[in-house]
């Protein structure tokens, strides 16, 4: 099962740019194109059905999607079939469907790079200026590498970062941090663990993508925007970062079993955090909605620890329509609808998303709840260094690269290899992967 959860996005760079511009008062937002279907289209679309291949990170996303679908159906007279896919089978099922000629019309994706040649170019239906409605960095992932045309929309931006259990921190008498580095984070976490006798001090999603955040903060990166292997030049910093995390797991202060005992399957320690077995959980903003709904304790988003660099690590989801669609114009319009300002704003507010539309970024999102948490994420987004989007230059390789990192981490945690050896192997792996591009 493909496990590249939050893909390699250049969004951070452009978000930095646009947030910076907003801060200086220069409006970078463009007016929404305000597309409305013509009468001819409406009659052609009546009762036609399209399929929306979808997965959700939280119940709120699912609910909001259903509401928006209902609105779309009312607007166009067409029907939308919502296929909810579990995240772990997202890419494999989609590839199976494409191979079978059973493509959905629109899909919400993690790895748009795999589907570049299957995606419907949007210019024909939505106009040349459509791409400009979104953050420049975000659209890179959904721009076809050779035709340079837009083949999808960036649906949201995600940001990695730590969640902390406030109740546990308070009980342990440890101050809630406003800024910290990793050493302080680990020390605080351990102190809270000791005082509250919780099972673990720390937990992180079983993911190379999440680990990359720590790399970045230590000043290490794997691939740069010129498709070069830069882990070699930052390997000592990477070793430090790797050792920090794996030591926690080796000492069983982080859920070692969940990581090691699941083989090639994905596992997320969200249930560990919800069961209050760890005071700190390193994940990302997509979990905010679920925690807001299900946590029976007081929690908040803590700022990303800053070592050499601040900020976090970006990810995101995308919408794509497929060439194989029987009603491409309807599919394109559905995509447009979902990505429009009103719908996006609603989704951001309900599910705690970070917007990718220039107009929304300019006006800011008023989060009805947990605004403080989102502010932390947004601040981290603004501080995320440009180099974090380097790996996005090789979209088809990010999956294998993150997965290899994850597997190497497992070996370090099990004591089979050292952090140093792991980094050496990762360097070799990246080189091998980059070589396949040249063939």
């Amino acid at each position: 099962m493909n496990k590249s959860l939050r893909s390699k996005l250049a969004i951070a760079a452009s978000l930095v740019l646009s947030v910076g511009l907003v801060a200086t008062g220069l409006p970078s937002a463009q007016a929404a194109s305000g597309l409305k279907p013509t009468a001819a289209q409406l009659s052609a679309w009546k009762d036609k059905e399209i399929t929306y291949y979808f997965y959700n990170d939280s119940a709120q996303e699912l609910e909001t999607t259903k509401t928006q679908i209902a609105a779309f159906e009312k607007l166009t007279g067409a029907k939308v079939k919502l296929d909810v896919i579990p995240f772990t089978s997202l890419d494999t099922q989609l590839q199976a469907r494409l191979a079978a000629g059973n493509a959905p019309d629109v899909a919400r994706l993690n790895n748009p790079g795999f589907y570049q040649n299957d995606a419907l170019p949007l210019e024909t239906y939505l106009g040349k200026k459509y791409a400009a409605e979104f953050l420049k960095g975000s659209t890179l992932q959904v721009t076809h590498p050779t035709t340079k045309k837009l083949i999808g929309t960036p649906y949201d931006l995600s940001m990695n970062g730590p969640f902390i259990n406030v109740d546990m921190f308070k009980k342990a008498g440890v101050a809630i941090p406003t800024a910290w580095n990793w050493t302080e984070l680990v020390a605080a976490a351990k102190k809270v663990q000791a005082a509250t006798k919780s099972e673990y001090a720390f937990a992180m999603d079983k993911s190379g993508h999440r680990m990359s955040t720590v790399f970045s903060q230590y000043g290490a990166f794997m691939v740069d925007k010129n498709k070069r292997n830069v882990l070699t030049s930052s390997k000592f910093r990477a070793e430090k970062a790797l050792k920090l995390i794996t030591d926690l797991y080796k000492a069983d202060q982080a859920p070692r079993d969940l990581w090691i005992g699941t083989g090639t399957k994905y596992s997320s320690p969200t249930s560990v955090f919800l069961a209050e077995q760890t005071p700190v959980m390193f994940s990302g903003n997509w979990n905010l909605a679920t925690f807001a709904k299900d946590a029976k304790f007081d929690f908040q988003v803590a700022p990303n620890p800053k070592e050499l660099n601040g900020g976090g690590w970006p990810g995101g989801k995308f919408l794509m329509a497929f060439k194989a669609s029987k009603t491409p114009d309807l599919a394109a319009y559905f995509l447009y609808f979902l990505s429009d300002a009103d719908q996006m704003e609603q989704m951001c507010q309900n599910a705690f998303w970070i917007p990718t539309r220039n107009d929304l970024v300019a006006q800011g999102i008023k989060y009805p709840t947990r605004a403080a948490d989102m502010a932390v994420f947004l601040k981290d987004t603004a501080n995320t260094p440009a180099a974090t989007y380097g790996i996005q230059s090789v979209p088809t390789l990010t999956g294998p690269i993150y997965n290899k990192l994850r597997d190497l981490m497992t070996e370090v945690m099990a004591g089979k290899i050292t952090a140093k050896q792991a980094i050496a192997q990762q360097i070799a792996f990246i080189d091998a992967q980059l070589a396949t591009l040249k063939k």
Partner: protein
Amino acid sequence: MPYVFIAPNMLIFLTFIIWPAIRGVYISFFDSIDGRNFDYVGTANYSSIFGDPTVASVARNTATYVVFYVIISTVLSLMFALVVNEQKFAKGFFRAILFLPVMLSPVVVGLIWNDVLDRKVGPLNALLEAAGGGSPGWMVEPKLGMIAVIFVGVWVHLGFYSIILLAGLQGIDKSLLEAAAMDGATRIQIIRLIILPLLKPTTLVIVILSTIHGFQSFDFIYTLTGGGPLGATTLIVQYIYDRAFQSPIQYGLGSAAGVILFLIIFAFTALNFLVGKKKNAL
């Protein structure tokens, strides 16, 4: 006329088993990452399999699993069948109980044992700790992972093999046993010298069946350990599955591995069959 009777079955065989099998062999000479575009690579897939250290460890794992699985299954099911056969009362009950795991779906089997073997919240370790035996990480230590997987595999199929053996036991001529008893043989001697040899054909069936099952084990292992810890329980079928469902996707490589697996199973089965025939056991 007979062709009419055979037709529907054969049609399905041909369409859904033979033709895909041929196609699978064909694909094994290509490389494909999306199931739609194929690049011819000749025997590159096969040579990369033989040169791949991961494959070596997968092969080792599979061999270990199959050997232990077959031996333990055969011995235990023989024991169980012999014991139940001697049993006076509640024979049917014990037979039925052992058969229970056979009926569980492999997903459920994986779920059950994931729970029971959990290092922290599993009852097995709770019992072990109470008995002073520590808390082994069944699914976290590579060696323990293999032990756990073999155990669960045997647990699932034991009832199935036992029942076949029990039927074999029923088929043994009672007069032979009575004659031996009258000659003063003890029960143990009777079992060892008469029953077991006469049971050879059935035992051979068990060996063949368990070998095939062993090589084909995947579903419950995948649910239980996902092939971990550290690939210790990744057997060949999972290796094939991962080539199609884990990135990087390599359909051609997976097909090549599949062809190799089939040849291995075929060779083993044929070998078993021939050895059995030679020993005149069949």
